């Protein structure tokens, strides 16, 4: 297996959000992961960004409620 290329903080941070979004593929993904595993500051940064993402994810979950559900079901029945 090819050894993972060592990258600096700047490069890791450039790709950090894509990495957390699971949008990095192949070697680049490995490089960022490798850097975060070794660098304390980038590890903290990654942890922070991930937690912020998680909090936003919670905010994406609404509460439709029974009344609205009924409205949608009625709508669908009419089709």
């Amino acid at each position, binding site marked *: 297996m090819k050894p993972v290329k060592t990258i600096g903080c700047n490069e890791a941070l450039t790709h950090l959000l894509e990495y957390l979004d699971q*949008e990095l593929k192949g070697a680049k993904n490995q490089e960022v992961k490798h850097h975060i595993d070794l660098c304390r500051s980038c590890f903290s940064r990654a942890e*922070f960004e991930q937690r912020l993402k998680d909090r936003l*994810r*919670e905010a*994406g*979950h*609404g509460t439709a409620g029974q009344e*609205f559900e009924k409205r949608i079901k009625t709508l*669908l029945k009419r089709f």
Partner: protein
Amino acid sequence: MNETMDPEWFERQAVGLLDDLLGAAMRLAKNRHDAEDLVAEAVTKAWGSRASLKEAERFRPWIFRILTNCFLTDCRKRAVRPAAEVSVDAVADDQEGGFSLFEELHQPFLLWWGTPEQEFLNKLLREDLERAVDSLPESFRAVVVLADLEGLAYAEIAKSLGVPVGTVRSRLARARAQLQKALWIHAQDAGLTKPVDTYQEATHEASEDDRV
């Protein structure tokens, strides 16, 4: 018959996603009334074009794409200021580029005290996040809603917005920087960034006593 054409299957899928659809619609439309109408419109459109859904397991990204399209189409119809929204990708990067909450909050030399950035996230309420998302311009809001609130892949977002994946990537980076800046400004107003410690309280009380 393809299962996507089965009315019962369709209803189960749509009703199962109602909380998420409404959550996304609330942030897009910014109020409950319009959000409900937006979801109703999206479900209606989705039903009408269900033949275009080739794989049953793609239902979620597919209906979110329709929801976003309904929102953006409605926006364009109502648009009194289309130029401001269209030019969002043309704005110079230095306006909101690179802003990072972490960099504002992180204090490496305070590690033994705990981490201010984690404390900040603990204090942040859901409504703080909602307000920050609501403060973004429409096309930034759409990309944040799809990526962060609903967890869609860049390729799906690109399809939803009708832009290349590269545009999604850069728009998302700038939208997030702007979102973090909004959170930061709000946090400063709300005093979230200053952890109240006993020293500050003590000196504050002392100065009040002095005034008496």
